[in-house]
């Protein structure tokens, strides 16, 4: 530490010192990045490799072309665009619902002092330890029963899936949002109240605009999380047996399962196209993500 600080004070470093202080860091960076990009690079390479076999793949394909993309777009057993649409619809709706239900609850928990506030906070904290996927068997049986009466809550229905996800809205997201709302001083509410603003107006016109990038980040994080969800989507949407009901995550898994040698190329093409939007969105939001993370969430 001491030597480093001293060296920083000089403007130029000798090559030896550069290697000792900074050079090795660049080497570590290159190795780490190579590891981090490894699957992405091979996914890209495989998607353009027209042989489409795991066994014959080279890093730079000898006969590059778009065959694999054509294959994944036109496979009647793997309706790629339908999956894409399902994933987007479910994720957008879920992100929106998570935000609405979570934000209003977080507002109440942050602003009002009422009976049961502590209990609600504790419940939210405890429930976070029990992800819904642990109760997947119970949810499956519940829908099997409920679907007999209410067709939109039957197994195979995307609405049922979204409603179940909404049950988890009072979780991590509400917790993080409460943290954001807490940063807005109470005096602002009080002066607005004196001026005759109602609690609804305070929420929509004052508090929400003041924390504005953060709710947007929560929306995008739950969007990404839902795009990634596998267990519940697989059990609930897969129950109907119709490939058109699936999401990308579940559909691609069923598409490639046990068929690595035959479907590697088309799979890579589909996976790459599905990964890109999510990755770009994520990298674009990096700095907000870090704040969200340190507020106590984990991925998933």
């Amino acid at each position: 530490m001491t030597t480093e600080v001293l060296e920083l004070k000089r403007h130029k470093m000798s090559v030896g010192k550069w290697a000792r202080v900074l050079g090795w860091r660049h080497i570590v960076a290159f190795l780490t990045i190579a590891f981090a990009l490894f699957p992405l690079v091979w996914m890209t390479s495989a998607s353009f490799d027209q042989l489409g076999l795991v066994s014959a793949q080279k890093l730079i394909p000898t006969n590059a072309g778009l065959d694999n993309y054509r294959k994944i777009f036109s496979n009647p057993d793997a309706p790629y665009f339908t999956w894409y649409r399902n994933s987007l619809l479910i994720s957008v709706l879920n992100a929106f619902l998570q935000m609405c239900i979570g934000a209003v609850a977080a507002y109440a928990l942050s602003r009002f002092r009422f009976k049961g506030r502590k209990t609600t906070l504790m419940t939210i904290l405890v429930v976070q330890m029990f992800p819904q996927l642990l109760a997947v068997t119970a949810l499956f049986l519940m829908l099997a029963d409920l679907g007999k009466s209410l067709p939109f809550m039957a197994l195979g229905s995307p609405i049922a899936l979204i409603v179940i996800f909404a049950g988890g809205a009072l979780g991590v997201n509400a917790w993080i949002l409460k943290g954001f709302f807490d940063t807005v001083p109470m005096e602002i509410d009080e002066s607005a109240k004196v001026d005759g603003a109602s609690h609804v107006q305070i929420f929509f016109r004052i508090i929400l605009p003041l924390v504005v990038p953060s709710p947007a980040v929560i929306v995008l994080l739950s969007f990404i999380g839902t795009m990634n969800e596998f267990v519940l989507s697989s059990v609930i949407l897969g129950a109907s047996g119709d490939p058109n009901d699936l999401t990308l995550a579940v559909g691609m898994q069923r598409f490639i399962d046990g068929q690595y040698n035959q479907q590697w190329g088309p799979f890579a093409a589909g996976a790459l196209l599905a990964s890109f939007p999510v990755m770009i969105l994520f990298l674009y939001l990096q700095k907000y993500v870090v704040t969200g993370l340190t507020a106590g969430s984990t991925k998933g």
Partner: protein
Amino acid sequence: MKKYFEASPWILLKIFLLGGLNAFALWAIPILVMNKTWIFAVYIGVSTLIIDYVFLSKKRIAAKYIVPGVLLLVAFQIYPALFTGYVAFTNYSTGHILNKDLAIDVLLSNSYQSAPDAQPLAAQIARDKATGEVTLLVQRVPGEVTAATKKGSRLIPQSEVKFDENGSLNRVEGFEFISEDEGYTLLEDLSAILAPLGQNQFVRLLDLTSAEIVVPALSYDSKKDVMTNTGTGIVYRPNEFGSFVSEDGTEELEPGWQTRVGWYNFERVIEDPRYRAPMVQVLTWTFIYAFLVVITTFFAGLLLALTFNHPKLKARKIYRSLIIIPYAMPSVLAILTWAGMFNEENGIINRMIGTQLPWLSDPTLAKAAVLIVQLWAGTPYMFLISTGAIQALPSEVMEAAQVDGASTTRTFWSIKLPLVLYSLTPLLIASYAYNFSNFGAIYLLTGGGPQIIESGGIAGHTDILISYTYKLAFTAGKGNDYGLASAVSFLNFIIIAVLSTYAFRKSKTVESMT
């Protein structure tokens, strides 16, 4: 007056939403009651009343914001958790789905077989013009026509029936004949017809032009609660596991019904060698796996964070963006890609290091593969939170260490690590709990395999509790054992609860968070 107009669009929206909810409840509750799913009917009814009360009251301001979320939380997170606990004490599984009454109905209707001396009867499929019902027109004795539907049968008066010269049915008043081609599309409705025709005899479709007389092989005595095979005379009595069993115990009637079986599922996990050995193995691996993932990713992330936390390091931002790519990639697709790269015969990894290692089918290598993929997937997260924690370290402490002449290694072990660990402990605990049930990490890469042979092929060497549960519930070859799966889930719940409570208590984070 002015204020009223200003508020009116919101009031209209509120009336519209509340009205919609109440209309939904009024529509749904009778259906739920009809299907005897009481708990859902009651829950929807009570929820609607609570929402009506809260939103029509002027006082319940906080509740307006919080009640919708809480009601959903109770319905889809807390109830399923409790229901898991309930199912764990039942024999809910393939063959034990129905309640007892329904199971008896199914047993009786499955037991129909051709009457001993029966001949196929001439039959015509038709549609009742009045009700639209699909009907079977059967001639038990030539010239005597009976109309059989799902609901029953009735004899048709001779005057309403016309035959052509060769004696085949030509026209029956009030019925419209259905062609054989159309009949194929109605097979499901047609084969549901089982109508009484004489003493303890029934008629059902044989093919599209004929019917047969059938008799039930089983008869049920509701007073004694026994099933008797009328042909062989064997008596079947209900046992405590929801099945009718013959007196010598060798024969069991399918399907059985759903019933509470006490601690039986838990006993099986603990005592039955088919479940105990794999369960111990799976449980041990779950603990080790989650621990190793947290430790390896944390140290990798922390070291990277320290490495790149140097003010003179150019390109820091680009490095950081590239390093967190695994965290940004959709994990399901990334893990499936890894599975392809670990492919044994000619996967990229084997070809790069020039080996033929059976990555996904050797127990040890499969575990290594799982850990490598998680190191890839989990390090960026740890890198991000460690960077945050290091940057938040109080600079005075670091300076003091420098002044005292502490070496780089010494400051790391004695000052930085303890401080970083202190601030990150809650996140590390959460990460442990998350990895403890990280289904995708296992299931998508190895499918839990390679199989543990003693488990009958259900459990695998890389299975963790949650993936084992999933396989028990949904993919086990012999049928799905929801009861056993819930028992294992229930154990999973308890382990996580105990571990997290203990860890949080020890790190005293709960108090500081609320």
